[in-house]
C-alpha cells in the first residue's frame, strides 16, 4: 500500500501548473460572472483541484469520465481546451457543448467526457452503462465517475455501486467529500459519515485519501485503476477535501464558519505544492513567474476566444432534440 | 321599448323569446316587436338574468317603456322573480338559437359545459363557409350537434334548398309574424320622408358614368365562376361609393342638434324595395373594408333576409349613408330623398346603352346616371361634385375595388 509515487522536477511542476490553471481560470470565471459575461449557476472548485487532477493523472485517453455540475476542474484536468470551456460559459457556439450547457454541462466526445451532470447522483447510473459498454466494446477502459458526498443520500448511489460490483464493471467511483452538500453538513445528512464504508457494504474495494494532496490522490487513483484494469471490478475512492468558495455564486455560507474555512485553507494544495517545489529546488522564482505568465496568457486567450465567439442561430433551437444519426 | 328609428314612437310586443330566469348576454335576441315598419328582433345590450317580464305579448308600448327587468350578474334578484327561476335557468341552452328548435329537443348530455351564447350556434366549418358565401347563420336551422348549424346546412342553404329557420315552427307561437306590414310601412315612409323634405335643404347633382369598362371586367370575372360566386354591378357601385365616402367623410354621418357628426364607419343603407310595396334600407357594415365577393355575399344575404323579414333592429339603425339603385328594370335616373338624420343619398339608375363620345368618336357605350342628394346644411355642391367624380374614378378601375 505504500507505493509512494516518484515525483520528479517535471511531474511536480506539471501538477502545480495544472492546479494553477484550474485555480486562476476559476478566479477569472468569478470575475466574469460578476461582470455578467457568465450567467446561470456557477459552482467553483477552489480547494478541490487536487482531486480532479490526481484522478485524471491516472487515466488514459481510452478511459471515460462522468463529472458533476462542479466540473471546471474535471474538464481542465481531463484536457478540454480552456477556450472552449470559456466560450461555453459565454453561451457561444464554439463552446464545448455549443453553448447549450453552460458551466454545469461541459461535454467532449473526443475526450470521452460524458458531461457535467446537474442532478446529484444522476451520473452514477450513466457510468454503470458506459462501463457495461466498455467491458464489451473496449476491454480495459475505465470509467471514472465523480460525485460529491451528498450523492450518498440518493438511491442511485447505492443501486449503482451494487450493480457495478454485482456485474464486475470497470468503474472508478470518486467521491469528492467536501463535507457539505450545498449547505447540508455531512453529519446532519448521513448516519454513517464514513462514506467509503458504504461502498464496503457492497463489497467494493475502497479507500479514503487526503483530497488536498494531489500526489496522494494520484497514487490512490493509480492503485484503483490498476485494480480495475486487472479485472477486479469497481473501486471506490473517497477523497476528503474542502471547497474554499461558496457552493455557488449566490451563497452567504451561513452553514459554516470563517474559522473553519481558514483552517482548511492552511491545507490548500497550491501553496503547499509551491512551497514543496521551491524547498526541493524543483521550481525557481523565475520558473514560477514563467508558469504564472503562461497560465495568465492562456486564460487571456480563452476569454478573447469566448468574446469573439458566435451566438448559435435561433433557427438551430430545435436541432439535436432528436438526432438523425448516432455520432461516430 | 327600444327606439329602432328616428320615426318610431311605439311598438307592439309580439313575442317573448326569454322568460323569467333566462340568462341573457349582450347581443341575445330576447323579443320580437312589431312596429309600423314591420317586425324586429330586439337585442339586449346587457347581461344578466331576466327577473321580470313587464310587457305582455300583444301589448303596445311607447318607446322607452320597460319591457323587462334584468338582474345583473352578482346582483340580488328582485323579490318579484318567480321562485322557480333557479332551476329554470337553462345554462346549456343558448337563447339565440332557441327559436326554431322543437320543444323537447334535448341538449345532448355532453354539452353541459356549453355556455349560453348570443351568436347563432354553428360549427367552425359552417361559420367559415357561411362567411365565404355571405350567408347569415341566423337564418339557418341547425341540424348538427346540439342544434348547431353544420357545414352541410350552410351548403344546402347556399344551394337554395335549406329550410330557413322557420318562425312558425312548433317552438314559436303561430301569432308571430316576421314580414313587414305594408300599411304600417307606408305610414313609416310617409313620416320619415315628410320629415326629410320638411327639415332638410336638399341639393341634387348628377353625373353620367361610362360603365363599359367595369361591366366588361365584371363579365370576365363572372365567366370563370360558379353562379354563387358571381358579382352583380350593384357590388361595384356600392364599393365605389364606399371608397369615395372615405375620401369625403363630410357626406357620411348625421345632422344632429344643429351640427354635423361624422360617422365612425362606412355603413351603407341599401335600399330594398319590397314586393307589395314599401322600402327598407338596412345597413351593410364597413362596406369599404369588404372585398367585392364578401360584399356580394352580404348583399345577397341582406336582400334574402329583407324578403323573409329577418332584418335586425340594429341593422335598421346603423346606416350612415344610403344608396338606392333601381336595378336592371328601373328608371334611367333616380334622385333620392335623404333619410334623416343622414346627410346624403346616392342614386343609381338603370344601365342604359347610348351613343357616347370616346376619343372624338361616337360609339355605343353602357352608361349609368349617378345622382347625389345631399343636405346643404352639412355640405356644399362643390364637394358633392368631387364625390361623384371619385365614384366614377373608382368604377373605372374595377380590379382595384
Amino acid at each position: 500500500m505504500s507505493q509512494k509515487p516518484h515525483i520528479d522536477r517535471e511531474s511536480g511542476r506539471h501538477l502545480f501548473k495544472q492546479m494553477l490553471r484550474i485555480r486562476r481560470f476559476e478566479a477569472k470565471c468569478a470575475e466574469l460572472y460578476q461582470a455578467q459575461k457568465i450567467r446561470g449557476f456557477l459552482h467553483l472548485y477552489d480547494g478541490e483541484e487536487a482531486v480532479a487532477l490526481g484522478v485524471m493523472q491516472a487515466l488514459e485517453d481510452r478511459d471515460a469520465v462522468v463529472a458533476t455540475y462542479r466540473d471546471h476542474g474535471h474538464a481542465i484536468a481531463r484536457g478540454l481546451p480552456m477556450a472552449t470551456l470559456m466560450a461555453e460559459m459565454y453561451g457561444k457556439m464554439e463552446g464545448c457543448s455549443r453553448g447549450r450547457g453552460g458551466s454545469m454541462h461541459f461535454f467532449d466526445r473526443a475526450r470521452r467526457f460524458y458531461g457535467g451532470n446537474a442532478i446529484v447522483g444522476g451520473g452514477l447510473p450513466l457510468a454503470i452503462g458506459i462501463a457495461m459498454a466498455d467491458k464489451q466494446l473496449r476491454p480495459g477502459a475505465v470509467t471514472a465517475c465523480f460525485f460529491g458526498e451528498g450523492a450518498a443520500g440518493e438511491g442511485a448511489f447505492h443501486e449503482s455501486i451494487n450493480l457495478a460490483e454485482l456485474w464486475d464493471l470497470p468503474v472508478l467511483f470518486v467521491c469528492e467529500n467536501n463535507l457539505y452538500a450545498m449547505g447540508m453538513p455531512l453529519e446532519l445528512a448521513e448516519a454513517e459519515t464514513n462514506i467509503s464504508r458504504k461502498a464496503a457494504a457492497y463489497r467494493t474495494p475502497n479507500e479514503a485519501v487526503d483530497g488536498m494532496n494531489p500526489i496522494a490522490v494520484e497514487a490512490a487513483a493509480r492503485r484503483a485503476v490498476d485494480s480495475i484494469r486487472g479485472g477486479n471490478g469497481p473501486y471506490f475512492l473517497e477523497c476528503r477535501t474542502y471547497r474554499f468558495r461558496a457552493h455557488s455564486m449566490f451563497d452567504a455560507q451561513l452553514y459554516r464558519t470563517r474559522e473553519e474555512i481558514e483552517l482548511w485553507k492552511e491545507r490548500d494544495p497550491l501553496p503547499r505544492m509551491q512551497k514543496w517545489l521551491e524547498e526541493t529546488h524543483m521550481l525557481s522564482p523565475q520558473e514560477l513567474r514563467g508558469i504564472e505568465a503562461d497560465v495568465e496568457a492562456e486564460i487571456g486567450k480563452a476569454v478573447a476566444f469566448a468574446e469573439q465567439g458566435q451566438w448559435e442561430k435561433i433557427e438551430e433551437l430545435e436541432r439535436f432534440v432528436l438526432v438523425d444519426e448516432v455520432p461516430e | 321599448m327600444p327606439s329602432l328609428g328616428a320615426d318610431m314612437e311605439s311598438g307592439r310586443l309580439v313575442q317573448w323569446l326569454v322568460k323569467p330566469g333566462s340568462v341573457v348576454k349582450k347581443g341575445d335576441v330576447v323579443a320580437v316587436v312589431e312596429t309600423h315598419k314591420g317586425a324586429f328582433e330586439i337585442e339586449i345590450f346587457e347581461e344578466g338574468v331576466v327577473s321580470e317580464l313587464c310587457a305582455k305579448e300583444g301589448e303596445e308600448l311607447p318607446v322607452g317603456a320597460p319591457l323587462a327587468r334584468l338582474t345583473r350578474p352578482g346582483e340580488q334578484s328582485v323579490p318579484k322573480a318567480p321562485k322557480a327561476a333557479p332551476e329554470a335557468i337553462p345554462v346549456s341552452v343558448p337563447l339565440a338559437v332557441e327559436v326554431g328548435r322543437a320543444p323537447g329537443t334535448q341538449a345532448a348530455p355532453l354539452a353541459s359545459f356549453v355556455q349560453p351564447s348570443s351568436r347563432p350556434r354553428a360549427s367552425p366549418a359552417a361559420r367559415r363557409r357561411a362567411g365565404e358565401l355571405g350567408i347569415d347563420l341566423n337564418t339557418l336551422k341547425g341540424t348538427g350537434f346540439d342544434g348547431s348549424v353544420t357545414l352541410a346546412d350552410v351548403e344546402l342553404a347556399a344551394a337554395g334548398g335549406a329550410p330557413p329557420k322557420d318562425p312558425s315552427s312548433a317552438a314559436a307561437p303561430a301569432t308571430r309574424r316576421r314580414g313587414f306590414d305594408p300599411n304600417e310601412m307606408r305610414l313609416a315612409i310617409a313620416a320619415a320622408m315628410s320629415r326629410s323634405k320638411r327639415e332638410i335643404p336638399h341639393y341634387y347633382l348628377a353625373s353620367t358614368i361610362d360603365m363599359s369598362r367595369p361591366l366588361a371586367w365584371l363579365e370576365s370575372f363572372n365567366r370563370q365562376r360558379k353562379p354563387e360566386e358571381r358579382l352583380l354591378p350593384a357590388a361595384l357601385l356600392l364599393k365605389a361609393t364606399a371608397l369615395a365616402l372615405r375620401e369625403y367623410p363630410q357626406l357620411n354621418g348625421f345632422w344632429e342638434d344643429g351640427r354635423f357628426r361624422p360617422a365612425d364607419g362606412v355603413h351603407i343603407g341599401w335600399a330594398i324595395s319590397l314586393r307589395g310595396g314599401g322600402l327598407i334600407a338596412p345597413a351593410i357594415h364597413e362596406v369599404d373594408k369588404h372585398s367585392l365577393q364578401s360584399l356580394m355575399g352580404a348583399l345577397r344575404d341582406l336582400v334574402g333576409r329583407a324578403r323573409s323579414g329577418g332584418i335586425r333592429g340594429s341593422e335598421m339603425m346603423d346606416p350612415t349613408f344610403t344608396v338606392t339603385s333601381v336595378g336592371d328594370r328601373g328608371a334611367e335616373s333616380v334622385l333620392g330623398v335623404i333619410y334623416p338624420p343622414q346627410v346624403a343619398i346616392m342614386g343609381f339608375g338603370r344601365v342604359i346603352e347610348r351613343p357616347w363620345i370616346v376619343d372624338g368618336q361616337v360609339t355605343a357605350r353602357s352608361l349609368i346616371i349617378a345622382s347625389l342628394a345631399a343636405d346643404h346644411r352639412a355640405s356644399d355642391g362643390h364637394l358633392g361634385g368631387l364625390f361623384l367624380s371619385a365614384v366614377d374614378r373608382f368604377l373605372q378601375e374595377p380590379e382595384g375595388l
Partner: protein
Amino acid sequence: MKELAANASTNRMTYREACRQAIREALIDDPRTLLMGEDVGLYGGCYAVSKGLLAEFGPQRIRDTPLAEATFVGAGIGAAMAGLRPIVEIMTCNFSLLALDQIMNNAATIPHMSGGQFAVPLVIRMATGAGRQLAAQHSHSLEGWFAHIPGLKVLAPGTIEDARFMLKAALADPNPVIIFEHIVLYNAEGDLDPDVTSVDIAKARIRRHGRDISILTYGNSLPKSLAAAEVLAAEGIEAEVVDLRVLRPLDNATLFESVARTRRCIVVDEGWKSGSISAEIAARLSEDQFFELDAPIRRICSREIPVPYAAHMEEAALPQTPQIVDAARSLVKPR
C-alpha cells in the same frame, strides 16, 4: 443456429409472441443489443414476453437486474451513449416513475445539451394500461406523460404487426424510444401479413376508413374503437379509426387530414383526461383545424380516479365501446 425459423412458418401469433420475436430478431441481428430489466431472465418476464430467451442468448444478453429502476435505466442510457444498443424493460409503467429522472434529465436531454455530441440510441419497453384487475398501482397509462418530453420518441403498438416490427425500427433510431405494450393486448392474437417485414415509427395509420367521424386512438383503445365503428356502421355512421401508433412526435398530418375530411372527431385515450395526450390532440386540432370542424371535439378517457380492483368498477373506470358509440352518435346524428 439462432434463426427465426421456429415460428416463421406460422403467421398467426399473439401480441406477446410478436414482442418476443421482435426481441429475438434484434438480439440475433446485432451483437450490441441486450435485454435488461427486472425478471426478464430466469422468470421469463413478468408478462412472459422474454420467456426462453435466457436459455437462448445467455445471461450477458438477457440481464436480470436488481430492483433498481433508476440505475438500470440510467445504465441503459450510458451503455447506449457508449456504443451498445440496449433494450431496457421496465416491468410496468408505474415503476418507470422511479426512473423518470434518468429518462428525462439524461436520455431526453443529453443529445441536445451536449450540442449533438452524444446520442442515446436506447429502447425502453414498458407494460402499460389497465383491464386486468391489478388495482391502482399497476394500472396506469402514462404514455401522455412521456409524450410530453422533447427528446423522446413514444410508441404504442396496438396491433400484432406493430408489436412485431416496431422494435426493429426503434432500435434503428438514434434517439431514445419508449414502447408502451398494453397488458390486455398481450393475449390478443392475429395473423401477420407475410409480406410485411418492417413498419415505420413516424406515421399514424388509418385502421378503418369512414367519412362521418374520426376516432383517434391507440393501444388497447384501438380494438374498442374498431368495435364501436362496427356498431356505428350498422346504424349508417361510417367511422374512421385512426391508430396514432406514435405518440411523440405526433403525426399531425394524418390526424389533420382525417379530421378535415370527416369534420368530427373523438379521441379515445386510456390515460386520464386532464393534461393527457388526448388533450394535446384536441388542442392541436382546435389550433390548426378549427375551421374544418363541424362539431365539438370529444374525448373518451379513463375516469379521474386511481383505478380500482373490483372488475365492475375497473370496467366503469376505463373507456369502453358503448361510450364511443354514444359519443359518435351524438356528434353525427344528434337527434
